[in-house]
């Protein structure tokens, strides 16, 4: 666990000298570049990528570098390289941005080979100011039904918007037409969303357990204090999170903000949930044997069990799904969300 990339590198270097056959046998390139869909080295995408990259480096005896070039450049780099020396890691944003019609978004299921899932960030959440009249999501939907405008701060075109879309969908199911009262406040990063709440430009904001939990612990008279109103993760995912939770909010409390305790219906039978999942993508012309080698390596890494603790320490939940299963899973997720997004759009 306390292996730095640098130490790892020298270890790998030594390993390569002593047993060059290993890497050769699997036909893996010695230097793999893992581009990710975020351009920040401080964010969750980078953290998950570097945990996986470290594990893969160690297990396969190759160098795996993580390059946070951002989604647009990452897709370009992946499209250019069919030799398997470039792989990409990203999360649900990669297909959601296409569903939301963001300019220049590829259809990942068409243009790339979607690979195994890695882990989940269970943190996606919606919050209200501590003194908000809304106690639950039901209050929010009821307010919309009563004709009150509810302003929700989101970053449009992806993960941050999907929960908002679900709210509007639920409002429409409950009282057709009331979804018009749930309006987006289009902001940028988390700082902007918080600021929108403090400036009284938004009644509800998208946020995360990680970034906003401490604000929920402030005394209620603090002007920056917030309350969770909805955590979008599935109960299965939250149940895998550490029991002590994060900060002062333990897992039991988190579960009270998530389905099925908080119900935002997606269909008559089903609640809407959203797990932000990280997964790999490959150039569609990459040698299948190479992709399989990585998939197998991941299977073995997760079987060893060390990587799980690393994810949990950083408040992510490990969730490896082998290639085929992952493809099916992500495709069905894509289809579910496509339905509600397109239904809302068509009106």
């Amino acid at each position, binding site marked *: 666990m306390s292996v*730095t990339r640098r130490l790892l590198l020298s270890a790998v270097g030594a390993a390569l000298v002593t047993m060059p056959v290993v890497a050769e046998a699997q036909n893996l390139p010695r230097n793999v570049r893992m581009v990710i869909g975020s351009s920040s080295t401080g964010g969750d995408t980078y953290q998950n990528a570097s945990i996986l990259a470290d594990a893969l480096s160690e297990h396969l005896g190759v160098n795996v570098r993580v390059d946070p070039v951002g989604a647009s450049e990452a897709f370009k780099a992946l499209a250019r390289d069919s030799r398997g020396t470039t792989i990409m890691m990203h999360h649900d944003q990669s297909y959601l941005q296409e569903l939301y019609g963001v300019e220049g978004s590829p259809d990942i299921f068409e243009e790339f080979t979607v690979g195994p899932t890695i882990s989940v960030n269970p943190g996606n959440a919606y919050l209200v100011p501590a003194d908000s009249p809304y106690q639950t999501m039901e209050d929010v939907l009821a307010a919309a039904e009563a004709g009150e405008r509810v302003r929700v701060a989101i970053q449009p075109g*992806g993960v941050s918007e999907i929960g908002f879309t679900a709210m509007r969908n639920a409002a429409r199911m409950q009282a057709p037409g009331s979804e018009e009262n749930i309006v987006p406040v289009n902001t940028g990063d988390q700082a902007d969303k918080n600021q929108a709440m403090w*400036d009284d430009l938004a009644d509800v904001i998208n946020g995360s357990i990680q970034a906003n939990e401490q604000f929920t*612990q402030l005394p209620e008279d603090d002007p920056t204090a917030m309350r969770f109103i909805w955590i979008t993760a599935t109960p299965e995912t939250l149940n895998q999170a550490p029991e002590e939770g994060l900060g002062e909010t333990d897992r039991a409390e988190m579960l009270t903000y998530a389905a099925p305790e908080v119900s935002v219906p997606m269909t008559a039978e089903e609640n809407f949930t959203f797990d932000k999942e990280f997964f790999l993508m490959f150039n569609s012309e990459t040698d299948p044997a190479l992709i399989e080698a990585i998939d197998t390596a991941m299977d073995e890494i997760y079987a060893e069990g060390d990587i799980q603790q690393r994810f949990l320490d950083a408040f992510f939940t490990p969730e490896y799904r082998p290639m085929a299963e992952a493809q099916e899973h992500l495709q069905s997720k894509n289809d579910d969300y496509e339905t509600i997004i397109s239904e809302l759009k068509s009106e």
Partner: protein
Amino acid sequence: MDLLAHLIDPWFLGLIFGGTLMGIVFGAIPGMTATMAVAVCLPLTFSLGLVNGLALLLSLYVGGITGGLVPAILLGIPGTPSSITTTFDGFPMAKRGEGERALKIAIIASVVGGLVSLVALYFFAPVLAQFAIKFSYVEKFLIIFFALTVMAALSKDMLLGIFSGVLGIFLSLIGTYDITNGGNGHTRLIPPGMEYWLDGGFALLPVLIGIFGVTVILEEAELGMPRGQSLKDIEVGPHSRFSFSVFRGQWVNLLRSGGIGTFVGILPGVGGSAASILSYTAAKTTSRHPERYGKGEPAGVIASEAGNNGLTGGALVPLLSLGIPGDSTTALLIGAFALQGIQVGPLFISQNIDTWNAMIAAMLISNLVMLVVMFFAIRWFAMVIAVPKQILYPFILMMCVIGAYTINYGIIFDVWTLLIFGVFGWIMAKLRLEVAPFIIGFILGPAAEIYFVKSLESFGDLAIFFTKSWIAVVLWVLIVASVAGSIAISRRNARMGEPSA
């Protein structure tokens, strides 16, 4: 472990020393930035543990911000974006043989700026954070607008200068209206056929080192590589001896610049480079001799360097009291905390008082280490001037390539940007367009756009810029004063019979 234990821990001290030193080297190489230094060392912190890891990263930050002054003064190439304003007066000083004096002034100003912001951070972080959240889109736009007014003050020819600045803003808008900043993700202004390369626009760092570094080299090539300065030229003579008397009458400037730097750091999203630009503007407009600025005025170097080091403490305020980074470097620190499973937010300081104290101690020590190291290294730095150009320039170009390619983790178009803006800068000079306002426009353009459009989008009223809050009114007063000051300066220059000097 309490603070005292850290202070006698050789690891802790060694990491601060090494970090500061490496930061200075990174900052001093054109194309390498403090952000890059922190980014490459981030993975190391995993094995170092939280306090030692932070000590390393913070001292890299302090060293990196400071190191940028070295090439800014000696070569006229800013080592980091926040040292652009240092070139305005530092380089003219070096050209007239006062390089060493300029370096010393800059170093002391840096330390003072760093200490001012550290005091602000340690004693007032929560209060300052509460104040910072009063800045909505409107106030942030006005801050940026105020910083943009420096274009007028920096112009040699007001009309051409402002044109250059607006051109800089225009070029900075090319590409996607970035969703992560609040935009709608649509592209605009891309020349036909360039969509593949330009959807992300031109990156700041390659533009900056292109227009400063590559342009300088092209201009020298055009002149046939004239012989440069030798060590003899910058030898300390009576005319250039450094003495503390330079700082007489500059205490207000030092404290104000440190304060401005701190304050800009506190405002998330305004961007680090605005710190030195604003403190330079403030120093120039309040000076009794504004006409000396841009020609080698020590007060300009002081303002710029105290301002950019003031940033270091300031940018940590929102990080540690709101969980929101104040600039691109502190954004990386979030990663360091997250890797250790530590939350940053409004409760960070009270819940991690030992870590907090150790961080402050690390930054304090790092500032002192920086002072000592830089003073010792001045002689070696100065030798850069004596390196033959046929060795220095190819080397700088190579480093610019590394810097441009690695700043966004491997995008080859960033390398081409370097050359495009190198040639562009050369043409600009021929057309008498001005680089300083251009680059300020380019840096501040994207933030100006977001905050301007978002202000109108949120409030739906043009009057909001005047009526939002008392802060907005104060900012308008500053803006008007700055513009009036610039006009007065250019009038005075005209009267003195040296228009566009």
